């Protein structure tokens, strides 16, 4: 797969990052390099090899179903640009 300007533009849009026209030219080869490296790795024959999620012998840790967090409304809202009666307030998002 090759990364052209329109692909960079699409990725930027999906990530909600504003990228100028000149920067598209700057990022395209960088992303292309990363992708080429991944493509190179894919040349290795992994037939019969189980996918490896982690190199150390650890398993997913679980927690018991206990309520021991929350009740920090002030902290949660601390960075909100606007609040009303405990709600975050944002620009209207329905069409």
């Amino acid at each position: 797969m090759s990364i052209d300007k329109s692909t960079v533009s699409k990725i930027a849009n999906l990530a909600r990052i504003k990228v100028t026209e000149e920067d598209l030219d700057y990022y395209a080869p960088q992303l292309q390099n990363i992708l080429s490296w991944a493509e190179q790795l894919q040349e290795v024959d992994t037939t019969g090899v189980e996918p490896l999620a982690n190199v150390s012998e650890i398993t997913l840790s679980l927690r018991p179903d206990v309520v021991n967090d929350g009740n920090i409304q002030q902290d949660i809202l601390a960075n909100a640009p606007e609040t009303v009666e405990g709600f975050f307030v944002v620009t209207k998002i329905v069409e």
Partner: protein
Amino acid sequence: MSAIIKGATGDWEIVIGMEVHAQITANSKLFSGAATDFGSAPNSQVSLVDAAMPGMLPVLNEYCVEQAVRTGLGLNAQINLHSVFERKNYFYPDLPQGYQISQFLHPIVGKGVIEIDLPSGETKEIGITRLHLEQDAGKSIHDQHPTKSFVDLNRSGCALMEIVSEPDLRGPEEAAAYLTKLRMILRYLETCDGNLEEGSMRADVNVSVRKPGGELGTRCEIKNVNSIKAVQMAIEYESTRQVEVIENGGSIKQETRLWDPTKGETRSMRSKEEAHDYRYFPDPDLLPLVVEQSFVDQLKETLPELPDQKKHRFMQSYGLGAYDASVLIMERARANFYEEAAQGHDSKIVANWVINELLGALNKDGKTLEESQVTAKQLGALVGLISDQTISGKIAKDVFAEMMASGKDPAIIVEEKGLKQVTDTGAIEKIVDEVIAENPDNVAAYKGGKDKLFGFFVGQVMKKSQGKANPDMVNDLLKQKLS
């Protein structure tokens, strides 16, 4: 509406698949220790994990895993011992992470099957494609301000099971039957409370139409259907719309449509093309989830008796018909009530009393079975009084009304009010004689061939005995005396 639409160019078959989001019954969230209660103050049940503060890490709730496995077993499905959490990326103000942690390629539950009960009394098997675990998003409120939306993150991070069906459903009735059965199974398992109004169970409906037996048509996904009735109405509207589009030379575009309950129509959400580019990838914060077969086996052993098993047992061991059995098993509490009431009494008569009298009376008062004044033992005792001829079926209804009002034992009410059935031949004979003596004209008419007057005599005797005379004995004595 059936599964077939009669179009201008012939018959069209409605094909439906469902995606049901069921909130898992648990104290805390899927990946954090914040509470999950419905209706709390906004943003009070939010941890720094749920608010997606930088550096916070998700830790999986083991009980939610258990609940998902139990549900999978209840759906007769394959449990995948190895499953993977992935990130589903999209932006929305009520999704602070910018992605939903979900399962994509490797869900915890694979293929299963459930049986639905159709209005005709027949059953049909519906395939379950998969069940996976995922986080819920927060809630946006759009109607409080002209230009702003309000966001509450209390629901953010609550555990959901997404249950996907095969496109095996045909027509609105089967869709309704599927939702009803699925909800019943979840409630029996106590893995989801199935509350459609509070949104703890939500359905997305995939609808397409095709010529019967032909290739599957292009589907539209309908969102915002939050009652079983709405699901049926949305399917009726949407399938008719699709047939019209196709028959007028158009084609169906695969899209998400919103059900508008006030206008009674579905409409395109006009989402941007790229909105569905979710760029799933394994969540680097979470290792694959591995469950042991022994854990699954252990859960299997503790599974309650499920609706279909219970229905068949009720039909076999209590001699009930399919309809009565299906009414009684609709809720676990109701089935338990029935079984307790039927203990030692005529099971068919008890079923009748539970379904027609008790549920009817509770429904009229707007009460649930849990709020019933009458206990299962008391209802059983009432049926016992009818069976041993202490009271007649007619008097029993009066006793029952008194039980509903006061919560007293039926035997005490019968005693206090002197409602005991008169089975003394002498006493009944005396009343019969009185009635015959008081109505010479009617006696003559009856003897002259007006058979219908027999009912009149029975009524008079019952009235004089204040309803307490044994009806069979009254019949016998009257026949004797009037012949």
